[in-house]
Every structure is written in structure tokens, then in C-alpha cells.
């Protein structure tokens, strides 16, 4: 146990957890309705769709990659599923095609990064614009209204008092944590992020594993797009526009390094919760909406600065 606390990552997690508790305490003390089951469910619902994408991004970044296109992928997946619903395609196929379409976009990201060796920031900045454009072009910029359908339950239903979106998010978090910690492939992803050349030397299939992280990330974004569409009954080509920066902020706040090899899904979950709690708490405090971005930015900057100082150096 003592050796566990010597690990740097664990200190990051403790710091995040304490911060989260302090935030909850602060808002509970300052506002009347913050501390209630109903409100915590609201927070959970607010973070779960973006959270799905953040989980995928965490895995990509642990392996030393980056994906900026994930929100655009979710928008495309939302448009695909909504068009298929309007065409009255079998509802199971709607889900399969929607997520598969996202997977194809992820495979294209993987092709650029792994095969053509393009820096992931540049490659996925390109595909971000490309995919977002596709989402708009598909309908000439119009929304697709699908109303109530077979998939509505996914976005609007609840189970055991909590929304299905929250359960699904938590299920993916737990599965992701088990995958990264207990499987050989998950441990290889950590090692690849730490030193990909060393992994190649011992015969680990670095490119194949890295490629799959982009596909998995896109499939999760596709699921998020499907959930958004079913929740609102409408697919927007502008869905999650700009959310990519918030998602990256949550992941970085959770202790994932841009250089890869560090951090974990628990950190990302805490990062998402902190941002979700702040966002929700500021609304309860009746703070002008524009302060939201200022506060989130400040939290991210303070968190990574403290982390860098504690590691004794940081970015070199």
C-alpha cells in the first residue's frame, strides 16, 4: 500500500478527489438545491455523453496519440442514424450502421496517423474539419427531426432511478478500466505511450494496437452521437461543435499526459466530475453563463501547473 502511494499517478488522483469533495462542499454550502439526489443525477446526465467520448480519448492519449475529430465523428454518426430512422430501417441495423459509420471514420484517422505517420494533432485537425463538413453537407445544414422512435429509450429512459445514459457511461468506464488494467493489450497501450520504440524492439505490434485505439474512440463517439439523437429526437450537424476542447480539458485535468503512458480512466472520470460539478454549481449560484468557460480554464491551468511543479520539471 505504501509503495502504491509512491506512484506519482496516485497523488494526482488523490488531489483530484480532494478537489472534487471541496467543490461539492462549497456549492452545497453556498446554494440551496445543489446537494440533492435529483441534482447529482443531473450532473451525471450532463457529463455522460461527453464522458463516453472522453473515455475513448483517454485510451488514445495513453497510447501516445490524440484525436481532435471525435465530436465531429459523433455528429456524423448522429446524422447517419437519424437518416436511417427516417428511412424506416430496422432499428437494430440503425444502431449498428451508425456506430459502424463512426468506426470507419476512426479507421481513416488510424490510417493517417499509423500508416502515413502524420502527427495526430494535424491529422485529426484535418479530419475534424472534414467530418464536421460532411455532417453539414449531408443535409445542406438542416437538422433531421426523428421524434420518438425505437431508440428514444436509450437517451430518455431511466433504470433504477438513474438515466440509462448514466448507466451506460458507467458501464463503459468500468469496462475500460478493466481493459486497461488487466488485459495484456491494455498494458501494452500504456507501454507504447511510454516508449513505442522499446515496444517495437520486443515485437509488440505497436501500429496495430495504436490504430485500434482510434477505431474504438470513434465507435464510442458514434454511440455518443446515437445517444444525443435519441435524447433530443433531433440530429444536428452542429452537435457537440466545440465540445472537443472541453473533452480534452477534462482528460488533461484527469492526469493524462500529452506525451502518453500515464494516467488512467479513474482520473478522467474525476476530471469529468469536477468540470460537471463546477458547471452545475455555477448555474445554481446564478453566475453569468460566460464565467463558465473562465472558471473551467482556470481549473485546468491550476491543476496542470500543480502537477507539473510536483513532478519537478514537467514540460521540457
Amino acid at each position: 500500500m505504501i509503495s502504491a502511494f509512491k506512484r506519482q499517478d496516485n497523488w494526482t488522483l488523490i488531489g483530484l478527489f480532494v478537489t472534487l469533495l471541496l467543490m461539492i462542499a462549497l456549492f452545497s454550502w453556498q446554494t440551496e438545491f445543489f446537494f440533492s439526489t435529483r441534482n447529482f443525477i443531473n450532473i451525471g446526465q450532463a457529463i455522460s455523453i461527453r464522458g463516453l467520448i472522453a473515455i475513448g480519448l483517454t485510451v488514445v492519449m495513453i497510447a501516445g496519440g490524440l484525436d481532435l475529430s471525435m465530436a465531429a465523428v459523433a455528429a456524423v454518426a448522429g446524422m447517419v442514424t437519424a437518416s436511417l430512422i427516417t428511412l424506416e430501417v430496422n432499428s437494430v441495423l440503425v444502431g449498428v450502421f451508425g456506430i459502424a459509420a463512426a468506426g470507419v471514420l476512426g479507421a481513416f484517422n488510424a490510417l493517417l496517423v499509423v500508416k502515413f505517420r502524420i502527427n495526430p494533432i494535424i491529422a485529426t485537425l484535418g479530419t475534424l474539419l472534414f467530418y464536421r463538413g460532411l455532417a453539414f453537407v449531408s443535409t445542406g445544414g438542416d437538422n433531421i427531426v426523428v421524434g420518438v422512435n425505437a431508440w428514444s429509450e436509450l437517451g430518455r429512459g431511466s433504470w433504477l432511478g438513474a438515466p440509462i445514459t448514466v448507466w451506460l457511461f458507467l458501464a463503459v468506464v468500468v469496462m475500460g478500466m478493466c481493459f486497461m488494467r488487466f488485459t495484456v493489450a491494455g498494458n501494452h497501450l500504456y507501454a507504447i505511450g511510454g516508449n513505442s520504440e522499446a515496444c517495437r524492439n520486443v515485437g509488440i505490434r505497436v501500429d496495430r494496437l495504436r490504430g485500434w485505439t482510434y477505431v474504438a474512440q470513434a465507435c464510442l463517439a458514434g454511440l455518443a452521437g446515437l445517444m444525443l439523437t435519441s435524447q433530443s429526437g433531433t440530429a444536428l450537424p452542429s452537435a457537440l461543435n466545440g465540445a472537443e476542447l472541453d473533452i480534452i480539458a477534462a482528460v488533461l485535468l484527469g492526469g493524462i499526459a500529452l506525451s502518453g503512458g500515464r494516467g488512467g480512466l479513474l482520473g478522467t472520470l474525476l476530471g469529468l466530475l469536477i468540470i460537471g460539478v463546477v458547471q452545475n454549481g455555477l448555474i445554481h449560484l446564478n453566475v453569468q453563463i460566460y464565467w463558465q468557460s473562465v472558471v473551467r480554464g482556470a481549473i485546468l491551468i491550476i491543476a496542470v501547473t500543480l502537477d507539473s511543479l510536483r513532478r519537478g520539471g514537467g514540460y521540457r
Partner: protein
Amino acid sequence: MAMSNVSKAFGQVQALVDVSLNLYPGEVVGLLGDNGAGKSTLIKILSGNYHADQGTFEHQGRSVTINHPADAQALGIATVYQDLALVETRSVAHNIYLGREPRRFGWFMDRRKMEKDATVMLDSLNIRLPSQKVDVELLSGGQRQAVALSRAIAMGGSILLLDEPTAALGVEQTQQVHHLITGMRRQDKAVVVITHDLSDILDITDRIAVLRQGKLWAYVPSSETTTNQIIGWITGVAPPQIQNGAGQ
């Protein structure tokens, strides 16, 4: 293991010219030469990281090709690189078994077995570390070398290539590494040690190979040469002298 007439060029630079070298189990070969003489290139060709432009390889009398690190691994060739090739952010145990992690149910890593095996491995080599669970980034240079050597041995290789294993080490740790090398000889491994350190080289090796400007300049039993003669070969003052193994 025998390599014959191996050549490699990087653009205009001829890094290796017609190098032929035989390795035998239970023998330690010291590979020497000045900077840029082609030592590291030779090691990287044997380990499959570079592809030789020309030349043939024989392993236990059979002709083989080495195009990929996996080919080298299949032949039992294990390498410890100069830059160690360790994953800083992973534990000692994972670094030792990287790429060959013990598995359970096919997909899952048997962490407990890995850590137990790592402890046994480190103990058998008399290597002292704070814990095999600690991340490599927290270790000293000598400790990292020990981890890298442990990995090469854990690979179960019959041919071990060590690229400057003592370059960053203090006197006592250098002694320990030399002890490891003689231990490997006793286990019937074929060992190649690249080094700049001439002080103990005649004691720990069975043969000395000297590369000069990409050519094999000397290949002689350690018992039949002296430190001064080796320096002569490295600098090109002494004439070439090659006795490529028994019966040749």
C-alpha cells in the same frame, strides 16, 4: 551462429563492409572499435532492426534470414541496447517481461505471476532493487542496466547482444555486470559485448573482434592478445588479423 560477408550502407556512408563473424555457445565475444566503426550497426542487423544490404546468416548449420525483430527473437537473439529501450513509466516487472507477459485466459495479464517471476529472476542474478513494482523512471542508471539485462535473459535467448552494458556505471556496478556476463557464459549462451572499456575486457571475454571503418580488422582469442595490441587494431596501427573460429 555465423554471419558471412555482411554489408550495410546508409546513403553514401558504408557502415559495414564484408563482415564475417562466428559466434559459439558458451563464448563471450568482445566487440570493439572506435566511434562510427560499425559496432552498433552490426548489433542492429543481428537483432533485425536494420536489414543488411548483403550477406548471409547461418544458425545451427541452417541458412536463415533476419528481416524483422521477430525473426531475431525466434532465433533466440536478445539485445540490450545502449539507450536501454526501457519504458520509464512501467514497473520493473513489466519491463522485464515486456512483450512476453504471462497470460491468463488468453487476453489477461497475470500480474501476480509476472511479479513473482521477476523477483525470482532478479534474485537469481543477485540484483538488488527497491521493489520490482516500482516504475523504472525512479531507478538509477545501474539499476536500469540490471533491468535491461534481466529482460534479455528472460527472453530465454541463446545469443545475447549487449550494447555498452557498462557505459554509464560505477566501478562496483560494472563488476556486477561483468559477473552477470560470466554467469551467462556458464549457461552456454553466446554473448556479444560491445564496449569501449578495455580494462577488464580480456578477463571476461573468450574472443576479441575489432571493427575499423566498417571492416572486421581483427578476430582473435582473448588469450592470444594484449590490451596494447587491441588499441593498435582499433586505431589501425596494427595489421589486420582474423582467425574466424575453430577449424577456420
